[in-house]
């Protein structure tokens, strides 16, 4: 029974969601920060600026607001990668993938280039948008809403309202 649960490829989202909500609440209270991820990339960009000697290291933002110091979220990233790897390894879902398993026509070189360009440019949008909003799907969407912050609700509604027509248009274009 236990081994079947541990090796199941997916768990019901109702259970994983409930546990994540509980985890986010504990993170707010005992970690004194939101359970998010977008801030970690900003700190990583700050490190990249300093150690690769990039011009953005001199921006006031990367010097004072988000200086290159090991943050809660950067350590959390390490934990997340280990956690995700463990979950995927146990369920045989770990695989080196150049493109997603589903949702793409083929695996030719041009498909790979298309996917890589897509995720690069969308990555810019996602991180830039999350930074403007003050958090991402988990940091503001879950952690903000559970603390009953209006920012969380506004963010969630706006993200969904923009994402649904975008996805429908993309589906039509494919």
């Amino acid at each position, binding site marked *: 029974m236990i081994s079947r649960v541990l090796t199941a490829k997916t768990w019901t*989202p109702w259970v994983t969601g409930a546990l994540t909500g509980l985890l986010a609440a504990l993170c707010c209270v005992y970690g004194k920060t939101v359970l998010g991820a977008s801030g970690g*990339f900003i700190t990583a960009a700050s490190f990249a600026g300093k150690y690769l000697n990039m011009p953005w290291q001199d921006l006031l933002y990367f010097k004072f607001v988000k200086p290159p110091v090991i943050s809660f979220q950067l350590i959390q990233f390490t934990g997340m990668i280990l956690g995700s*790897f*463990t*979950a995927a390894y146990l369920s045989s879902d770990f695989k080196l993938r150049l493109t997603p398993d589903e949702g793409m026509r083929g695996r030719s070189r041009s498909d790979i280039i298309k996917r890589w360009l897509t*995720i690069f440019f969308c990555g810019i949008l996602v991180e830039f948008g999350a930074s*403007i909003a003050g958090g991402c799907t988990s940091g503001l969407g879950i952690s903000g809403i559970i603390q009953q912050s209006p920012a969380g609700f506004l*963010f969630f509604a706006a993200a969904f309202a923009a994402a649904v027509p975008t996805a429908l248009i993309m589906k039509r274009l494919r």
Partner: protein
Amino acid sequence: MLLPLIIGFIFGFLLQRTGLGHSYKVIGQFTFRDNTMLKFMVSAIAFGMITISLFADENMLSASSMPDTYALGNIIGGAILGIGMAIAGVCPGTLITGIGQGNIDYLVPGVLGFLTGGVLFGYSFNPYFLKLSAIGFSKGLTLEQLTGAGHWMFSVEMLIIAASAFLITRKFDI
């Protein structure tokens, strides 16, 4: 040091087991082909909100985990993130999850895109973001402060919404 590592491990494990390290699961939500993500979010929000309400009664919430509300920025940022997420199927938390399960497209162009988004935000912080975030700014605002209604009212409402969603999605198998 240990707390963010443990929190991250559980978070990454849960996101991976929900299937959200796969971009087609995220994109599928916005065309309503696959409602995993919404079920996960609704469950997380309901259980997290109840837990936070319990902590709030004991005065254990800290101001540092409370997001700030600045309506225009929360909405614009959310919409930009929503567009990127609907096209590429990633958000900051699921990008890290995908890296843990072996997605090379997440690890290389994905991370580069997120870092670029972070750098762009750094450049726009002083000239644009400070002005945008000043519009309708309210530090650590909560629904309770905004409406005067007690926080339990919203938590119980959210639990009822989640329970209804659970029953409806099961009954109609959606």
